[in-house]
């Protein structure tokens, strides 16, 4: 992992990857990143000449699912080769070093690449009670993040936990979890959201950083626009059924068998920005909707609290839990006014002066 000499293409060539293979890969990656064909060619050339950056990977409140997703391809692909070729100087799950040695490696890498290394974070940061809910080597996640981010060129928040707080932040958020972007304000932060995120998105961001030395264009939530620019629904192959109003009503009805739209079964496709429908999962095999299950909306903030995975989008979350309180408050106000009215009416009665003929004359 310490070999830092030579360009990426050289290192790939040494591993037996041909230039055409690399170009093919770059064409596909550029296509996924929606780069125009001309830029795509420049991208391939620049990437070929790029040198390996140092990457420090911090894991906080997470489940390692993101790492699994990014590293577990069925067979070694170019993607994983690129991933392997970066200088991953610190990563709990993958590094051989442990304990004091591991922390020393992190500090050494920071010092050596100060201002240039890429900081990748997965997991959210607990803030409640001084951050005691997650510590590494006795250092709270918050302190380690703030310390490590100082020398970073940019930060990539991998997974919905790092990007938006994710599952740890779900109500009632017992650890006071926050997203990386809530804490890091002075460095560019890319959110690669998803639970887990699509591997190629991570590669795309890395490749872009390698090729152009900059981060790709981001959406309002800090996600690479190329991958999060359209909704699942926009690119869903079941979209024509939606447009025709053909919906599966249960998971085993005729509509489900016919592959009709899963909207009414709670699919969050229409409000979820991600590229599952085009990039797909498991080396391009399929994606959830193709397997017959609606989108959970995992790349969106607070998807866990968005009202239930199997509730249609057009159905409200849970509006009636305030009903009893509303009725009570209304009754209190009403009774209050009623009492005031009663008092007013009694006063009017008490103040009644019997009308006489004299009263009728103006």
């Amino acid at each position, binding site marked *: 992992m310490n070999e830092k000499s030579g360009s990426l293409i050289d290192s790939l060539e040494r591993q037996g990857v041909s230039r055409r*293979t690399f170009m093919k890969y770059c064409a*596909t990656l550029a296509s996924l990143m929606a780069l125009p064909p001309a830029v795509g060619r420049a991208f391939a050339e620049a990437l070929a000449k790029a040198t390996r950056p140092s990457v420090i990977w911090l894991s906080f409140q997470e489940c390692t699912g993101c790492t699994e997703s990014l590293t577990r391809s069925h067979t070694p*692909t170019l993607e994983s080769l690129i991933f392997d070729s970066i200088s991953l100087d610190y990563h709990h799950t993958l590094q051989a070093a442990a304990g004091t040695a591991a922390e020393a490696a992190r500090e050494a890498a920071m010092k050596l690449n100060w201002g240039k290394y890429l900081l990748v974070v997965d997991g959210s940061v607990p803030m409640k009670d001084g951050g005691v809910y997650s510590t590494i080597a006795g250092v709270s996640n918050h302190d380690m993040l703030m310390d490590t981010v100082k020398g970073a060129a940019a930060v990539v928040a991998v997974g919905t936990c790092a990007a938006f707080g994710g599952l740890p932040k779900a109500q009632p958020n017992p650890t006071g979890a926050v997203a990386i972007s809530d804490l890091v304000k002075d460095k560019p932060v890319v959110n690669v959201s998803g639970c887990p995120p699509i591997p190629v998105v991570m590669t795309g961001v890395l490749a872009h950083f390698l090729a152009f030395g900059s981060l790709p264009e981001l959406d309002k939530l800090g996600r690479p626009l190329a991958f999060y620019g359209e909704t699942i629904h926009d690119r869903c192959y079941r979209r024509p059924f939606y447009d025709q109003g053909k919906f599966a009503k249960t998971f085993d009805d005729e509509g489900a068998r016919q592959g009709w739209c899963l909207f009414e079964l709670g699919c969050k496709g229409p409000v979820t920005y991600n590229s599952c429908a085009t990039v797909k999962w498991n080396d391009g095999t399929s994606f959830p909707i193709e397997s017959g299950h609606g989108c959970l909306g995992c790349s969106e903030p607070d998807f866990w609290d968005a009202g239930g995975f199997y509730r249609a989008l057009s159905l409200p979350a849970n509006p009636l839990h305030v009903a009893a309180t509303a009725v009570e408050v209304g009754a209190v106000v009403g009774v209050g006014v009623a009492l005031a009215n009663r008092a007013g009416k009694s006063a009017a009665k008490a103040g009644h002066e019997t009308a006489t003929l004299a009263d009728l004359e103006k």
Partner: protein
Amino acid sequence: MSLGDIPIQLEVGGLTGSAPAVLREIAYLLERLTRYGEAGSIDLHGLPLSPADRRWLLDQLGRGEIEIALEIGGGSRIVETAYPGVWWVAHDNEQGVRTSEFIEVTLIPDLVPAHPDDVESGLKNLKSRISDLS
């Protein structure tokens, strides 16, 4: 029971009407190629084409004289259409799943010519082989 036994009907709908627009785009790119010598390409993954659209497009473009099969990290095919200068380029991964698909409008697709660096190192290899002969 194999995966193929599960009756999943992925194919939906008929023509969406997007395919003819692709044809017009190809004509435009061809014009640029003849007039300015500028190559162009269309990323078919970026277009909302239904399988029916794709078949229609393939039918319209027809087959030309050249078909190149590449084995580069999964199979790739470069097929000349009935319109010279218009190529259908399809890349599969090692699992045989289509990863990207382009229509390239160019005299010869980028992937085909050998790279000067590769030629140079090839020459080096050849020379060493020749020297081994002696």
